[in-house]
């Protein structure tokens, strides 16, 4: 199996991107949809600008991470910055359920219809 590492060869770069932070809260799920609320501006951190550019249409965190070749934790930190600055909005998935609880049946029915119509 071959893997192209995602910039992990240079941890210093990741450190610089996040301003030395290595922990992110889990406010953003992998599939939280991010939408830009403003256009990139000159002088912004380049990663922030790139995110705003990518999220003109709703884009899941995991897609942004893949596109920018950055780990999930780093994406969560960057998105937290942008959310705090009011430059993005986040559309969250249904809230996590208690262990062993099932998703709502109405939602599952909607998923089934969607899959059958593929």
């Amino acid at each position: 199996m071959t893997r192209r590492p995602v910039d992990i060869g240079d941890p210093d770069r990741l450190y610089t991107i996040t301003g030395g932070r290595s922990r992110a809260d889990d406010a953003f799920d992998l599939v939280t949809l991010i939408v830009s609320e403003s256009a990139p501006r000159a002088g912004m951190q380049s990663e922030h600008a790139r995110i705003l550019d990518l999220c003109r249409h709703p884009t899941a965190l995991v897609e942004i991470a893949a596109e920018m070749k950055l780990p999930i934790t780093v994406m969560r930190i960057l998105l937290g910055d942008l959310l705090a600055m009011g430059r993005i909005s986040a559309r969250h998935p249904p809230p996590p359920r208690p262990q062993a609880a099932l998703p709502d049946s109405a939602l599952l029915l909607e998923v089934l219809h969607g899959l059958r119509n593929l």
Partner: protein
Amino acid sequence: MGSATSDLPSLRTPLSDAAEAGLKIVIVGGFGVGKTTLVRSVSEIRPLNTEELMTQAGVGVDETRQVATKTTTTVAFDFGRISLNKRLVLYLFGAPGQERFWFLWDRLFSGTLGAVVLVDTRRMDESWYAIDRLEHHKTPFVVAVNRFDDEPDRYSLDEIRQALCLPAHVPLVDCDARVRSSGKGVLITLVDHLYEMAMAQEMTL
């Protein structure tokens, strides 16, 4: 399965502006079992690859080299996407079943609708471990047997159920991960199963 992802830059296909909720289904299985093939066969985008960092000491044991390390390692996974309707988007994640991955399960896959365990009958022990872990995390799942042409002995589903100690209520189906209708059938089997369980749960409330 990294070999199934191309190195070409992705052609970005934006979601509908009305998209409001992302959902997750995880496909678990060992290397080479066909996770990415399955994701590819049903996904509307070419499968993408991403990574998460893992820094916990003592869990970064690379089994191929038997080297314990406390430095940051990464766990990689593939994913694809299906727009179910204007509002809902389903993301399919291919998760390697190896041990260290499970340390990240809650951080990556909490809230997942459910999981598909993809089985290669030539390497059944890997599936056994995945099933054990999913039960531990109380994640509902179905099992799909990816049939390979060069299987020496074609085991019946009954034999596979027995080998995996799979309870009777867990759906077990055959599939060909390369075929879109087959992959779609596996996902429908899972969501059908979830729906029936959810209905039963709601009736008792």
